[in-house]
């Protein structure tokens, strides 16, 4: 044993063990418990511990679950697309067009040193009925009546989350842009590419890993978010996480909540894997 610990493999395992054990336990144990719970049933406050597929059956047959799941994935997809699309130019700007990289990275992180809930709240102030946006538009004389489509719908959810996730999208993309050997870009120019062609033929394919990383970091947790939808989503913004939260909260039906969690994870995982495969394949197609 002592001998093993002196080898490279031994040292590596020993050093990384605390972190991976910690995460492993905290992932594996709850997941295990979720799985067990998902086969139980609950009526009122009594938990029935006989194993049954009933919850899965319910999750599979209830159109509500399917509807919310689909909507969650669509909204999360929209959030991901919007965030990444908005973030890419910024990451590009910081990586290639400015020397004050640290300053810009700082500028981008500072807004996130306030409370998330307060930031979401602020969005309501901006998008609200007599919020900043409407007040501005009215005082400019562009509209007479306040616009109501700004808040309490999917748009508001997408906008709010595109804001909240900004640094999580900018940083991985920035890193992958920063890693690009500048001489590759010059080589492309040298071989006759204009700036735009160069971007699509070299820069973009080389940042596919960064885009994938950013997308996963955004997409997956967004599906699980229930706070933002309930604050700014209005009557149309409900997502599957709200349903899960209701099971663990008011409905007090943990087994069903566990089942829905697992179903959600599985669907999200499936979508994520499909996305990675598709994005990688698309990146490869560019020549």
């Amino acid at each position, binding site marked *: 044993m002592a001998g093993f610990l002196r080898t490279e493999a031994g040292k590596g395992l020993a050093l990384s063990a605390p972190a991976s054990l910690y995460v492993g336990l905290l992932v594996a144990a709850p997941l295990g418990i979720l799985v067990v719970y998902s086969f139980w049933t609950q009526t009122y*406050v009594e938990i029935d511990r006989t194993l049954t597929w009933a919850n899965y059956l319910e999750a599979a047959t209830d159109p509500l679950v399917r509807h*919310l799941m689909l909507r969650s994935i669509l909204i999360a997809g929209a959030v991901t697309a919007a965030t990444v699309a908005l973030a890419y130019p910024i990451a590009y700007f910081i990586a290639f067009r400015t020397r004050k990289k640290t300053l810009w990275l700082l500028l981008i992180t500072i807004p996130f040193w306030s409370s998330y809930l307060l930031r979401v709240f602020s969005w309501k102030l901006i998008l609200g009925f*007599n919020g900043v946006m409407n007040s501005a538009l009215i005082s400019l004389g562009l509209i007479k009546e306040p616009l109501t489509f700004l808040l309490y719908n999917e748009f508001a959810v997408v906008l709010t989350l595109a804001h909240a996730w900004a640094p999580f999208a900018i940083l991985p993309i920035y890193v992958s842009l920063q890693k690009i050997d500048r001489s590759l870009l010059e080589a492309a120019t040298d071989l006759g590419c204009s700036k735009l062609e160069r971007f699509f033929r070299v820069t973009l394919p080389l940042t596919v890993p960064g885009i994938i990383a950013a997308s996963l970091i955004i997409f997956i947790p967004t599906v699980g978010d229930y706070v933002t939808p*309930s604050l700014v989503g*209005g*009557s149309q913004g409900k997502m599957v996480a709200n349903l899960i939260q209701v099971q663990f*909260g*008011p*409905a*007090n039906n943990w087994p069903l909540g566990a089942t829905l969690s697992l179903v959600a994870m599985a669907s999200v995982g499936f979508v994520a894997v499909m996305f990675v495969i598709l994005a990688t394949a698309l990146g490869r197609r560019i020549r």
Partner: protein
Amino acid sequence: EAGSLSVFDWSGYEDQGFYGGYVEKYGGAPSYTYFGSVEEAFTKLQSGFAADLAHPCTDALRKWVAADLIKPIDTSRIDNWDKLLPQIKDVDGVTVDGQTYMVPFEWGNTGLIYRTDQIAEEDVSLQLLADPAYQGKIAIPDAASSAYAMAALATGASSYTDMSDEEFQKASDFLRRIHPNVRFYWSDAGQLDQAIASGEVLLGWGWNQSELNLIWNETPAKMMRDVDKGIATWVCGYVHLNSSTQSDEQVYDMLNALSAEDSGKYIIENWGYAHSNAEAFKSADQELIKTYGFADVDSFFEDSLFFDAVTPELEGRMLKEFERIKAGF
């Protein structure tokens, strides 16, 4: 010493005016932990969270009892028990199956709040919520029981706590009809207040606290208090938790302080909430009593709907159906 007593409460209730007697005796306030909703409180308590007192409302009590979270109250140790409004003491939930579980503290109305500058008093009704003219102009709570209480009033169900299948269907249909009009399902009262104040929402099902907040902010809005058109009354109070670790004496001292006449006077005058102590209405500033609409307390109880504890089976159905309605199903 004073802080060793822990109270699990809505935020804001740590106001020392609510339990002056306790502060006097123990020289300070108990320690407070907050929840955002009664459901949240239930989840947390069931998860093993411990405290001495908690502050739910009557509609939840049956579940709390079933989950074995709370102890019966020894009413003989409540000095003010006899002074409490009798109608309040009778509410289902204060007593469950003949046992008293709660010392009622504050009560009030849940009703239709509307903009008086946009809707005339004689036109307002619960049916207006379903009127296509108000598309995107109404807000109702993101809570199944409250929504169904409203629907029951609107559809004339005989009993809210024990609806027949047909009545339940009618109530659900009503909620479905108003869904397209709903701007948002509010989860915090402030959201409703702001929307009404700004004119974003003209009609909303809310608490009398919202009405007051609007009055204080000089918004032309009020609650529809016509019992014939439909209004509900809620009662909340303190329960003695099974997980309590403090001595009964300290717990009851707190309960006594909360139900005292002085506390009642304070909450009526400063918060505009109705208190459970009948004496408090006499000693409070009568001007304010009038402004807040407490001049004739008994009228509240006559035909108003009380948030009694719904039967478990019905509650489950409500929750499930309400989720569908919200999702547009």
